[in-house]
């Protein structure tokens, strides 16, 4: 495939087009809106489904094949918050609270971006390892903790009105927050039940998945476009951060994935995971531990800048890169 073909394959996929449709709806001031419970239900479905799929795959994968990729993923989860933090302090001269908050987001993962990458791989034939979803869980948690530590280190005084509880509460949220719980729980369930016992639920969780994801991206488009307003205030520096740092992380991830012995598709998906910024698990935990950090800052960056960047440009590039390094 030529670069342009790769880009086309991505932009013309139902998933990306649905995102564009959602953006269009907001820009045209259409009264289209998803009822809140539909949004919540789709996230529950998608997160659980990823987990189940990953767990079922894990149940038929020799542990040996997973160990190295898992270790590498963990390492990236500890490293990338630091690089993001350093960039924000050094280049954007951001205060340490907000820098730590953003670091937690950029170290962590966006499940939907991950899914878009997996889907893209299936469309181009670069299928990724079945156990990748399990790695998402591995990448998500430590990064958030590191990010909070970076900010909290700068900030002995506990969050207002919450006493020392806030820090514990935040850790509790990181580990039991609904998105991580569904992901990890799904992996555990699928792994314990095993591929065969999961077969009867496949029509619901596997066959229906792509369509549900498309519907969800329509809503993501509606939400992300609302963030565009805030972009102006955010300023060019934040845009630079929201594109450059993820890109660097992505390249790093693809390269490390290759070293870890992942397939071309696997390396590209790992790259996408590392490049992506969380906008569910991280914001929830950060809002608890760092109430003084600006939500408009981290939500605009991860949802308004980095998510579309990876979805439209990043993913195909990480795959192209994985081919060059891998093939």
């Amino acid at each position, binding site marked *: 495939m030529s670069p342009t073909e790769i880009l086309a394959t991505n932009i013309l996929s139902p998933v990306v087009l649905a995102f564009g449709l959602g953006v269009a709806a907001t820009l045209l001031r259409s009264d289209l809106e998803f009822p809140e419970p539909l949004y919540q239900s789709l996230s529950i479905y998608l997160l659980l489904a990823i987990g189940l799929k990953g767990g079922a795959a894990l149940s038929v994968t020799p542990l040996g094949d997973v160990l190295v990729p898992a270790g590498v993923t963990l390492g990236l989860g500890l490293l990338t918050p630091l690089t993001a933090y350093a960039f924000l302090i050094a280049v954007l001269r951001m205060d340490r609270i907000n820098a730590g908050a953003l670091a937690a987001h950029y170290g962590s993962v966006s499940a939907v971006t991950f899914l878009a990458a997996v889907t893209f791989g299936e469309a181009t034939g670069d299928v990724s390892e079945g156990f990748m979803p399990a790695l998402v869980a591995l990448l998500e948690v430590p990064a958030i903790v590191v990010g909070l530590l970076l900010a909290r280190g700068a900030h002995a005084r506990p969050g*207002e*009105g919450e006493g020392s509880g806030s820090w514990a509460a935040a850790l509790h949220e990181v580990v039991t927050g609904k998105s991580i719980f569904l992901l990890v729980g799904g992996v555990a369930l699928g792994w314990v039940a095993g591929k065969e016992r999961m077969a009867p639920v496949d029509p619901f969780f596997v066959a229906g998945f792509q369509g549900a994801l498309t519907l969800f991206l329509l809503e993501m488009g509606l939400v992300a476009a609302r963030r565009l307003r805030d972009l102006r205030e955010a300023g060019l520096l934040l845009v630079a951060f929201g594109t450059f740092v993820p890109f660097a992380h992505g390249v790093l991830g693809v390269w490390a994935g290759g070293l870890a012995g992942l397939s071309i598709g696997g390396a590209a998906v790992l790259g996408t995971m590392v490049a992506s910024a969380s*906008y569910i698990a991280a914001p929830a935990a950060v*809002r608890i531990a760092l109430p003084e950090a600006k939500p*408009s800052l981290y939500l605009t960056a991860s949802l308004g800048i980095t998510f579309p960047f990876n979805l439209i440009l990043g993913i195909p590039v990480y795959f192209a890169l994985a081919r060059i390094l891998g093939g």
Partner: protein
Amino acid sequence: MESKNAVLVTIVAERLLRDRLTEKIRALGAKGFTLTEVQGEGTRGVHAHEFQGPSVKIETLVRAEVADQIVEAISKYFEHHAVIVYLSEARVVRAKKFGS
């Protein structure tokens, strides 16, 4: 039935404060509360519902002293959180039920 005055305390807050606030008001002596999911806009403009779900409105009928303590307790969150609180007069029957 003879009715007594009580104070209706209304709190609107971003969702993540929900459990902390309900525990707090119970601890301060509220005998119950009614919770409604709401959306809102204020001066802070935290669109928290994108990652937290809808905001919550908590209404509790209490006697005057308790009402003031609740306001006091909640003011701790004013600086950094999306939360407001206001009081209004209400007449209730079964005053005991509301601690009056």
